[in-house]
């Protein structure tokens, strides 16, 4: 900590909420959520390697209410992080930085993540109905 109190730059308490900051915050939040989600990935792979009983437990967890809600959340987190990640890569190449473009592609990514989640879960539910 500095010995003298220096002025702070404006932070969350000062700025009005806007899509530019929401997309940035969500990218970090979904990244952290996805990192936590890798626990299920590792457990599922270890279960598949160790035998039918272990696999049945993982399948039962994924099919339970808590499991379904978690899977839905991770689907959206992955959809958002994927789309906004592509947006970041495009920005790294120098495109889409004008304020109106930035706002527009922020909304495209946010709404697109819900569309993508819907598509994936339409596939899930269609398979469930068919099985």
């Amino acid at each position, binding site marked *: 900590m500095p010995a003298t109190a220096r002025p702070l730059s404006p932070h969350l308490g000062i700025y009005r909420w806007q899509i530019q900051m929401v997309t940035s915050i969500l990218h*970090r939040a979904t*990244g*952290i959520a*996805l*990192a936590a989600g*890798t*626990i299920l*990935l*590792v457990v599922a*792979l*270890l279960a*598949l*390697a160790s*035998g*039918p009983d272990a*696999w*049945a437990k993982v399948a039962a967890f994924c099919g339970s209410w808590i499991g379904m809600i978690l899977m839905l959340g991770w689907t959206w987190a*992955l959809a958002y992080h*994927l789309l906004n*990640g*592509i947006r*970041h*890569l495009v920005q*790294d190449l120098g495109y889409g930085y004008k304020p109106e473009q930035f706002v527009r592609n922020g909304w495209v990514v946010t709404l697109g993540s819900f569309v993508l989640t819907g598509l*994936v879960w339409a*596939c*899930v539910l269609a*398979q*469930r109905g*068919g*099985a």
Partner: protein
Amino acid sequence: MSSLRTPLKNALGLGSARQGSHHFIIQRVTAVALVLLGVWFVWTVLSLLHLDYAGAHALVAQPCNAVLLLAFVVTVFWHAQLGLQVVIEDYVHARGSQLALQLTVKFLCFLGAAASVLAILKIALGR
């Protein structure tokens, strides 16, 4: 340029570590890989849903799927570790807890990757 350094920096003699861009570049390289591998992964999980244990085991055991899954898990943990490192650097300021947290994340990511690789190899090579 030394005039722009703080007196403490001059006293310590610490300049640039000359690897500032390495983290940035690897984060982007793994990100590009994960765009492709991530879409493949979601597709594969969707095709796993209606399968029983033997079917799921056989699907992952296919050489093409096993190789792509290996690439996916290694890249996921590599990318996760890079991203979490930046988040911790930004928000955890106490030196001791930052160091402890950074090491914990790195170790857990390595363990996660190692366990996943072992599981995939066992599925792909075992009878």
